[in-house]
């Protein structure tokens, strides 16, 4: 990973190392000057081993979450890189004609359909000459790449989209060699006239082997004398030029790798043979390779391209830094994943911080007596603070080191799950982690933990010597200390400031945070003014819950909402819930006793079990908050996922009413699909009730009237068959059209009109999380508003024809229009921009009721195999997409669920500490007649009570907040429904509760073994 939240990782690592180094230096110097304090602190670690292990385990969780996020990102970056480099091999730069896509073809659907333009073969020599004195350049090779449909002779098997790489044998020095599975190198110069080498993947798809025959259909330039065996029945393609040329070829060998930059479904033949078949004596790419290993070789790409610039301009060519682009894209993908995981892991990290604080508070409580004596015998506050800070720093050091390494393991597990999500797609996960990121995770954990340690140390140093020695609880001054009064005054002031700032910036997040702080501040002020805590905090809690959960907007309309709102709402709602519960605990106790008190032997057990957590508000509140925060997030996510999954129930809404999509190969286009369906064997035209034809053009586009830079955009053109039958609706339209049908009719009848997908339009709810931004983003309106201004134009220019048009945007498609991405206009408009008819690139079919779309897709592929038609059943495609998305969402929830470890660890820490603290009381209970089992049960019920309360609170708050969130999504995205994910909720509740019980079982058993006489002896 190169960047994290936009900051280069190297830079981030050095900054964090500097902060860590500075802190370590200060601590080190301080330790040297206070050796006694340091020794006293350090000896606690080996002397209290069990406690050290517990503390370190608790502290390492936050670091582990960081490290796991980074490892996931690193692995995905690496996997994406490996895949990209597998196809590119040693190729660093591809020189191509202007207007060709990055890999020589325009991507359109699952196949590559646009042919790369040819240019003079002499250019390769000139490129070589220009780069001759560049030492990093290892080779320059002329080549041609075509994409053709291939069928195996004698079988029905076909590969509609197979890359053919034509290489010049004499120029391949510095590039990869074709390598067979046996490791043998295959030489193109050994190939006979009609022989090719075939990739292992293509051979597998076609079920052919060495010596078998295949048929490939090439698009041959017309009026070419050099073309051998031009078929008499080859259909002329209107305006496109080439004719289809089926060619019989023999497989001379199979290769595993080396045909770069062709895809894994490819074949290789000598350049001249490919040129003969396509009627060309020119080439369509020049490949440039640098010295050195794949990734390092990409360095210096800019210098090489700069050197070629004059030549490129002269010949209207461009040099694509394909390898560096692929690496950048891979890195961006990895960074996106890391950002998502870090973003959604925030609640877990917040819980982790609470746990760190809780651990140190409890550590301080345990040491209170010892520290009190230390003060009594002459230690100053500073000494105490240093001593505690030294000990904390040592724990933090151990925990951060272990956490950063453990996170790598967790990351490994997560990418295994991600690997399953991509299983079958050909994307293979290659595990990787980088030292930089482990160091960053370590430093982040260390800095975070140490900050909490310092605050805790300061708190510890303020202890009252007498109270500490006699173990008398600190008096509750009800917030009327100087610190308390200052906090009570500062909180509402900060709230008011944030409200003002939120209004100025029109940010709901800031505004709502401000309102929440006003409420929190009011409660603090009320406490200072001697209003009973129960009243002030219960009322504040209820107000906060109302503010966040009631379906009313408390802010002015027109404000924007970001992902930050989710986190602010989570923290505030959980705080409110915890307050309401903690300050009304007696009601809860009564309810629990009333519910279970009738069970034999339970009343005393219940009383002991529930009274402790309810009396110890700080600990219980913290643990409740930890559980609730994490459960709340997972529950909210699961509700949102369930709501979005409900979209997939209505495939018609997503598919626009079509059942099968098919992408055409350019080698043998089908001029009129409706006609072709009538005449083709194996197709019953009655099965097809509508056919839409789509075409497209790569254009430079920008919004008219803005000073944005034109970006390359794929402009989709649709015919009447599409516009008359498509069922996609619009979330926003210009005023003159009321219905979706009117918009589609206008698109068909009025040239230079366009509709856009919703991601191109600005939204009031900006919930995008790091995913790929659209090529162009329009401005001056909101896609959420039903009426679209009538003066939004997209200015497009075809770089080939030089034609420019202003397309008027007349509608913004619903978010569920999955298969109408980007900008869609009429086919006539596209032809007009291109200056000549553009061949069809894909088709959409609606089937008669009862016809199986999967079977229809197979029939279409089979019937039009020679045309390279690739068909898919849309319903299946949607289901596959839904399944992958579901798996990814579950993984994300699982990652967020790691935060539950924090709550569970907190319960374990508290239970272990309680056994020590209550040893004497346990002895007394045993003296009074508590059986061992009852003591154990009391501890287990105590933990269960806190865990279930936390889980229940999280589930209830998450479910309540989800109502509003799902409603607001449903307003924008039709098809979204509030659905209760019972299964997921069951798993969340069950797993977290069982884990919590298991953690407290050991301390509970220890408690039951406390011997009454021994416990009572040490008073």
């Amino acid at each position, binding site marked *: 990973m190169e960047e994290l939240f936009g900051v280069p990782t190297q830079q981030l690592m050095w900054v964090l190392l500097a902060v860590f180094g500075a802190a370590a230096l200060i601590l080190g110097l301080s330790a040297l000057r206070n050796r006694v304090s340091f020794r006293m602190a350090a000896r606690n670690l080996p002397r209290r081993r069990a406690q050290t292990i517990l503390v370190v385990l608790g502290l390492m969780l936050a670091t582990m979450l960081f490290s796991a996020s980074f490892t996931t990102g690193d692995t995905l970056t690496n996997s994406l890189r490996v895949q990209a480099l597998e196809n590119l091999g040693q190729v660093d730069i591809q020189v191509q004609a202007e207007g060709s896509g990055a890999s020589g073809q325009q991507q359109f659907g699952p196949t590559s359909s646009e042919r790369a333009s040819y240019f003079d073969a002499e250019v390769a020599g000139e490129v070589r000459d220009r780069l001759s004195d560049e030492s990093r350049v290892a080779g320059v090779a002329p080549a041609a790449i075509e994409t053709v449909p291939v069928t195996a002779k004698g079988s029905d098997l076909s590969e509609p989209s197979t890359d053919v790489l034509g290489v010049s044998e004499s120029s391949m020095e510095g590039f990869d060699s074709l390598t067979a599975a046996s490791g043998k190198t295959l030489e193109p110069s050994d190939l006979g006239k009609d022989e090719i080498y075939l990739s292992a993947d293509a051979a597998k798809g076609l079920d052919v082997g060495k010596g078998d025959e295949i048929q490939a259909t090439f698009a041959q330039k017309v009026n070419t004398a050099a073309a051998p065996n031009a078929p008499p029945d080859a259909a002329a393609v209107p305006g496109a030029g080439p004719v289809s040329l089926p060619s019989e070829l023999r497989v001379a060998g199979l290769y595993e790798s080396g045909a770069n930059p062709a895809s894994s479904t490819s074949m290789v033949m000598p350049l001249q043979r490919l040129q003969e078949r396509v009627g060309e004596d020119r080439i369509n790419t020049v490949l440039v390779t640098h010295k050195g290993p794949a990734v390092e070789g990409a360095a210096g790409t800019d210098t090489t391209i700069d050197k070629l610039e004059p030549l490129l301009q002269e010949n209207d060519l461009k040099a694509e830094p394909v390898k560096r682009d692929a690496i950048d894209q891979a890195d961006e993908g990895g960074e996106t994943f890391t950002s998502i995981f870090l973003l959604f892991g925030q609640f877990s990290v917040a819980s982790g911080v609470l746990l760190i604080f809780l651990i140190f508070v409890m550590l301080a409580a345990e040491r209170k007596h010892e520290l009190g004596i230390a003060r009594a015998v002459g230690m100053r506050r500073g000494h105490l603070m240093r001593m505690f800070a030294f000990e904390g720093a040592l724990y933090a050091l151990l925990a951060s080191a272990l956490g950063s390494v453990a996170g790598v393991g967790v990351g490994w597990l997560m990418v295994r799950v991600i690997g399953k999500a991509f299983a079958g797609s050909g994307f293979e996960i290659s595990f990787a982690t980088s030292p930089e990121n482990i160091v960053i995770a370590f430093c982040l954990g260390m800095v975070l933990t140490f900050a909490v340690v310092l605050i805790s140390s300061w708190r510890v140093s303020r202890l009252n010597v007498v109270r500490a020695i006699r173990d008398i609880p600190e008096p509750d001054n009800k917030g009327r200390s100087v610190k308390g009064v200052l906090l009570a005054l500062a909180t509402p002031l900060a709230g008011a400031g944030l409200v003002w700032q939120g209004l100025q910036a029109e940010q709901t997040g800031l505004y709502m945070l401000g309102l929440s702080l006003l409420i929190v501040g009011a409660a603090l002020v009320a406490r200072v003014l001697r209003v009973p805590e129960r009243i002030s905090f219960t009322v504040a809690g209820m107000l906060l819950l109302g503010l966040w959960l009631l379906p009313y907007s408390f802010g002015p309309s027109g404000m924007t909402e970001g992902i930050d709102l989710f986190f602010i709402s989570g923290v505030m709602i959980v705080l409110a819930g915890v307050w309401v519960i903690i300050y009304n605990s007696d009601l809860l106790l009564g309810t629990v006793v009333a519910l279970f*008190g009738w069970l034999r032997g339970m009343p*005393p057990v219940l009383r002991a079990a529930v009274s402790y957590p309810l009396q110890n508000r700080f600990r219980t509140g913290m643990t409740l908050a930890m559980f609730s925060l994490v459960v709340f997030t997972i529950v909210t996510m699961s509700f949102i996922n369930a709501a979005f999954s409900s979209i997939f129930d209505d495939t018609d809404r997503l598919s626009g009413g079509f059942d099968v999509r098919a992408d055409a190969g350019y080698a043998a286009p089908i001029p009129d699909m409706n006609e072709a369906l009538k005449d083709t064997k194996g197709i019953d035209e009655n099965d097809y009730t509508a056919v839409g034809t789509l075409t497209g053009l790569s254009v430079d586009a920008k919004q008219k009237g803005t000073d944005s830079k034109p970006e390359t955009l794929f402009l989709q053109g649709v015919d009447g068959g599409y516009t008359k039958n498509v069922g996609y609706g619009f979330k926003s339209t210009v005023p003159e059209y009321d219905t979706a049908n009117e918009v589609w009719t206008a698109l068909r009848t009025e040239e230079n009109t366009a509709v856009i997908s919703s991601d191109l339009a600005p939204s009031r709810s900006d919930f995008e999380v790091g995913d790929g931004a659209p090529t162009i983003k329009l401005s001056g309106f909101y896609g959420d508003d039903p009426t679209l201004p009538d003066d939004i134009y997209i200015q497009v220019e075809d770089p080939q024809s030089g034609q420019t048009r202003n397309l008027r945007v007349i509608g913004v498609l619903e978010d569920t229009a999955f298969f109408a991405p980007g900008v869609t206009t009429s086919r006539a408009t596209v032809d007009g921009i291109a200056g000549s008819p553009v061949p069809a690139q894909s088709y959409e079919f609606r089937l008669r009721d009862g016809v199986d779309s999967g079977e229809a897709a197979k029939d279409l592929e089979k019937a039009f195999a020679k045309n390279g038609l690739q068909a898919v059943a849309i319903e299946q495609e949607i289901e596959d997409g839904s399944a992958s998305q579901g798996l990814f969402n579950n993984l994300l929830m699982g990652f967020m669920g790691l935060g539950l470890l924090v709550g569970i660890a907190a319960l374990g820490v508290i239970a272990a500490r309680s056994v020590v603290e209550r040893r*004497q*009381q346990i002895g007394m209970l045993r003296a009074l*007649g508590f059986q061992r089992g009852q003591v154990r049960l009391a501890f287990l019920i105590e933990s269960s009570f806190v865990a279930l309360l936390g889980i229940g609170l999280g589930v209830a708050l998450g479910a309540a907040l989800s109502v509003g969130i799902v409603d607001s999504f449903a307003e924008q995205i039709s098809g979204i429904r509030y659905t209760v994910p019972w299964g997921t909720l069951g798993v969340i509740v069950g797993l977290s509760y069982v884990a919590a019980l298991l953690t407290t079982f050991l301390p509970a058993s220890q408690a039951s073994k406390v011997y009454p006489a021994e416990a009572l*002896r040490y008073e």
Partner: protein
Amino acid sequence: MEETAKEFMIEATGVQKVYAAGGLRVRALRGVDLGVRRGEMVAIMGPSGCGKTTLLNVLSGLDDLSDGEVYVDGESIKGMSDRRRTRFRAERMGFIFQSYNLIPVLSAIENIELPLLVAGKKPKKAREWAQDAIEMVGLADQARKRPSEMSGGQQQRITVARSLVNNPAIVWADEPTGALDSETSKGIMDLLVRMNETQQQTFVLVTHDPAVAARAHRTIRMRDGRITSDEANGKGE
């Protein structure tokens, strides 16, 4: 034996207790023979480390004995399982300790009713009995307070109420006035003596305070794990 059981609430013979700590064996009790009659109040005195508390723990079944035999109300403590002994304590015994050992998270009334709930009384009935007990010790107005909100004397009164609430046959008190000033101590002892006289419960008190011991029927003195004297205080018998 049957005759003895009727006469004696507690009968201990040849009681020994050996602690093993860090390879060191400490003989805390070295063959103690003792009998306590029903309704008797006995004080055990002696210097620190003489084995007073150990003897109380062993007699009450809070601790195992290494050798010898202890009968309480005619039943052998030695032969009882932990479960049976625990139930025996819940049904027949009450405890008072120097540091009160009230459960800090429970209110005064809840602390008092705890032994009743442990013994299986219905919560409603337990509350009624606890209410009577707290009135008996004169702290009905403090019923809802938590131990930390009460004075030492009040806490010890609550402990007394807790120890007597289930009408135990025998009450064990380990330094019941050890943490109290002399006036409060007197008040607590008045209370214990009154209970002993009115309820005819057997009391075994461990104390350093001669004034407390003087209120008992009998004072047993110990040294080095042995009983060195056993004298009547001139009251009761």
